[in-house]
């Protein structure tokens, strides 16, 4: 590969000289390169399609679409801010709940649980990630929402009620429920991936801490979590990705009202939610185009999240892995 870098980059095989295995190698390289490229092409195609189909709404509303708070199909006025707010806020609530719990689960599964229990417990956690989201939604609607209405919301109001987030009518259905159901759905993902990453931490790191007289907790904190930090961050990003795009379960518990309220008790609406529940009734061109533009925004937001995450990961890597790698 170092001898003929151009061979696999541009597919210029030198037939006379190349031995059989070399030809096979470069065929393989070119083939895989084509597969990799096709993913990029597909992403670009999706982007282009979304972009061209949202032209109508882009021309009509311009940047106001991003800041507009009104969503009125009757008067043909469309603003996306309530949906952006709903998606971002519910995802943040989900992360705030899910990250500490998931790290706790991962730590227990990789460091603390009795050896015999580790595999079966991890398997069960991974199984939870495979439950279809509509099932989470049903459970959320019939079990979680009443509990939130009768227990969690009164509790939050009485303890943190001085904050604007925890004031207002207690319906159960609303932003808080959306955030909690998302948290429950991303906990398996974040804990399973974090656990894998923590298992990958070499034992020599743990031993280094133990040999200095560190306790188990100090060892986990310094040797394991620190070493695995980059990967754990990646796990969290995976969870966030799932939360941002999750549609069905959230539709069932968040209330689907396009509004921006500081109160987490109030109903809200997400970007994926509005697309899924309204595209059938969107018969006018502008209405449909606006929905597609929301899809475009969701695409861009998730893409940006990923880029930011990668940049952070890259920075952490550079800091810890040293200059050599």
């Amino acid at each position: 590969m170092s001898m003929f870098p151009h061979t696999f980059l541009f597919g210029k095989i030198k037939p006379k000289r190349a031995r059989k295995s070399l030809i096979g190698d470069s065929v393989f390289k070119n083939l895989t390169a084509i597969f990799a490229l096709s993913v990029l092409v597909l992403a670009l195609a999706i982007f282009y399609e979304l972009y061209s189909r949202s032209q109508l709404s882009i021309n009509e509303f311009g940047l106001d679409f991003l800041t507009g708070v009104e969503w009125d199909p009757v008067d043909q006025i469309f603003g996306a801010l309530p949906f952006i707010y709903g998606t971002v806020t519910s995802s943040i609530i989900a992360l705030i709940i899910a990250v500490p719990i998931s790290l706790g689960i991962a730590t227990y599964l990789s460091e603390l649980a009795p050896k015999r229990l580790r595999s079966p417990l991890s398997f069960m956690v991974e199984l939870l990630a495979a439950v279809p989201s509509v099932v989470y939604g049903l459970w959320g609607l019939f079990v979680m929402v009443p509990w939130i209405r009768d227990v969690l919301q009164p509790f939050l109001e009485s303890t943190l009620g001085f904050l604007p987030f925890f004031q207002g009518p207690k319906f159960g259905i609303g932003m808080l429920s959306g955030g909690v159901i998302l948290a429950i759905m991303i906990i398996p993902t974040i804990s399973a991936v974090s656990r894998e990453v923590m298992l990958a931490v070499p034992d020599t790191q743990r031993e280094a801490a133990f040999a200095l007289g560190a306790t188990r907790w100090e060892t986990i904190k310094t040797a394991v979590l620190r070493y695995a930090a980059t990967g754990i961050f990646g796990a969290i990003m995976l969870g966030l990705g799932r939360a941002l795009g999750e549609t069905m379960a959230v539709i069932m518990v968040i209330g689907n009202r396009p509004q921006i309220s500081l109160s987490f008790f109030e109903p809200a609406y997400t970007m994926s939610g509005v697309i899924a529940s309204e595209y059938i009734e969107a018969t006018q061109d502008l209405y449909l185009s606006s929905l597609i533009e929301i899809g475009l925004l969701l695409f861009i937001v998730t893409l940006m999240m990923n880029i930011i995450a990668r940049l952070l990961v890259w920075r952490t890597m550079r800091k810890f892995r040293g200059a050599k790698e």
Partner: protein
Amino acid sequence: MIDRASLYDMKIEDLQPLEEAGVVEKEKIRIRGLNVWFSKKQVLQDLNFGIMNNSITAIMGPSGCGKTTFIRALNRMNDLIDTCRTKGEVLLDGVNIYGNGVDVFELRKRVGMVFQKPNPFPKSIFENVAFGLRVHNMANGQRLKEEVEQALREAVLWDEVKDRLNESALRLSGGQQQRLCIARALAVKPEVILFDEPCSALDPTATAKVEDLIRRLGENYTVVIVTHNMQQAARVSDMTAFLYLGKLVEYGSTRDIFTNPRNELTEKYITGRFG
């Protein structure tokens, strides 16, 4: 002074008065009837010997004979392995470290360890050395800085890293990383330092530096070093123990072991005629 090695099968109780009177060298560690098993498999069998204070003891023997298991028994690192079971006594200054009420965290502070492969934390050079000091609440603020500097100087690393204390420890070379690990162990002011083949991952130049350092540490600390390398044992150690299949075959001053081994197995091993 009487050569302690010549008295190695005397009872510790009988020796203590002699130690106190300064007639024989002081023993830092006494191993009595030490047996270690992994699951059903016995790895160390009835070890009995003493490790001299402020001296360097080399543990030699063919691969798999239990050298690592032995030194990990001295700071109870074997406790971390579920299948491991230990019987017998290891007396540190006369107190059994396997006795009731022994604080293992305190023990590991007194008996430091340096591993085969350098294993710095993915933190800054400074934080690596400060780790133990922080864990044991030994210093903070200006004192912490001074202690870190002192440990790095003692490990002959200070001049190489003083301008880059906040850089990642992983940017150091292998030899520097190993000396950093030594500094990290020294920072908590141990009395005993265990080395498990500390140079096996290093090139000859780095090895020479680490060996020099270990020899110097032998003046103020009790050092136990596992090594495969006979020349290394001969170069650095005062005393040598030869283990074979989990048993202590021979123990004595390094000079005697290398010039005049009493046991045929030892002789075979040091002359390289070993199966």
